[in-house]
């Protein structure tokens, strides 16, 4: 395994990792699914139509009271370990990417560690990232492997519905809940490349103040996205040296996604969109794309994927990596 860091390849910081692979991925949805009609008590039909025309959300799954991010991620992880035949004791650690932990402390990953029955030698910690979390998590897991870890469970999930103001039309209709688990192991000689970035001047454009709800300055987030993300997509192509088989972008908003796709000149077949079915699920949108839109393909084929996350922070990350054929790419519902 080798790790390199090169500031010269593109205008952004780039990183590469070798000798790791995704063995399987599972996403887990709450059973409760709501269509747009559900919100008529809070908004007029015209408001709902206007908001959803832009966002593209038709359905979203949301947790009932008492169900947590840990519940969604633990079930995804249990299903994944079972299907892969991985014994919990064989894991070196678990990393949870979330902005909706079960509580302020301890780290939710520690509770999940206990529920999964991992070894006392295994590390477990949370990382507070949202829309950009999944490619960051892949980079972090791969980097931990460069220091000796052999098997890591990367969890990415959020229950954003718990921090939504039901009267805020900018957010109430947009977000859904989901958890995920990705099994990463040291094996083979695949190469993963990453671009990472942050603009902390946008920190208050998407935030939750203590005791408050999620607030979003939609036009600032939109402006940031259109400024940074097309460049990021083009840069990850440049870093890889050619185009990708599929471009999986964080499912932020349908209007944004279509605009980025057209601006980058990407064919719609290479650019899956599922925000209509799940809403914006924050850290879980990319695993949801892997397990719904790309499942059948990744089970039998090897594909070079660009995974691109961007949003709250402002934070962004893009990963270029081969995935497949993988043993597990399941989308399940919480029992």
């Amino acid at each position, binding site marked *: 395994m080798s790790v390199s860091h090169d500031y010269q390849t593109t205008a952004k910081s780039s990183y590469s990792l070798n000798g790791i692979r995704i063995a399987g991925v599972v996403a887990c949805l709450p059973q409760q699914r709501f269509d747009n009609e559900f919100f008529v008590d809070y908004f007029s039909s015209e408001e709902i139509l206007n*908001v959803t025309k832009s966002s593209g959300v038709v359905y979203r799954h949301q947790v009932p009271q008492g169900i947590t991010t840990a519940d969604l991620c633990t079930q995804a992880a249990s299903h994944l370990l079972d299907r892969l035949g991985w014994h919990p004791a064989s894991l070196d650690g678990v990393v949870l990417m979330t902005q909706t932990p079960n509580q302020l402390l301890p780290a939710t990953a520690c509770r999940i560690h206990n529920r999964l029955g991992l070894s006392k030698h295994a590390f477990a910690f949370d990382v507070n990232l949202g829309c950009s979390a999944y490619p960051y998590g892949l980079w972090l897991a791969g980097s931990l492997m460069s220091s000796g870890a052999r098997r890591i469970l990367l969890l990415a999930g959020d229950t954003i519905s718990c921090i939504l103001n039901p009267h805020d039309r*900018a957010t109430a209709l947009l977000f859904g809940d989901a958890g995920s688990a990705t099994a990463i192991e040291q094996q083979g000689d695949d190469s993963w490349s990453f671009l990472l970035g942050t603009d902390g001047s946008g920190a208050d454009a998407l935030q939750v103040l203590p005791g408050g709800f999620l607030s979003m*300055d*939609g036009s600032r987030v*939109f*402006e940031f996205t*259109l400024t940074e993300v097309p460049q990021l997509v083009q840069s990850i192509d440049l870093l890889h040296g050619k185009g990708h088989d599929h471009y999986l972008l964080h499912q932020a908003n349908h*209007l944004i996604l279509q*605009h980025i796709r057209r601006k980058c000149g990407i064919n719609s077949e290479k650019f899956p969109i599922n925000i209509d079915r799940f809403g914006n699920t924050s850290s879980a949108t990319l695993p949801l794309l892997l397990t719904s839109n790309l499942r059948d393909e990744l089970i039998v084929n090897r594909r070079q994927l660009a995974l691109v996350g961007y949003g709250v922070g402002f934070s962004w990350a893009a990963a270029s990596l081969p995935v497949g054929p993988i043993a597990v790419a399941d989308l399940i519902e919480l029992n």
Partner: protein
Amino acid sequence: MPTSEKTIAFLVELADILEVDPARVTVDFSFSEIDWDSLAVVSSIALIDEHFDVIVGGQALSDCGGVSDLLALVADKLGK
């Protein structure tokens, strides 16, 4: 100021976003006649980027009183 051909094509699509008869959306069109809200603004940011290849700020766009202000904002961006 953007070229007139580009501007005409842009205004046709802007009318579609604003759900207004395209014949009404000229340089004299005032946003006080419509609901120039955050959704209209973000859609317009994308449309401006698509037609003129510049990103205008959401607040600056939100402050525009009408099409003439919007086009002046685009021209200012293009001139920078």
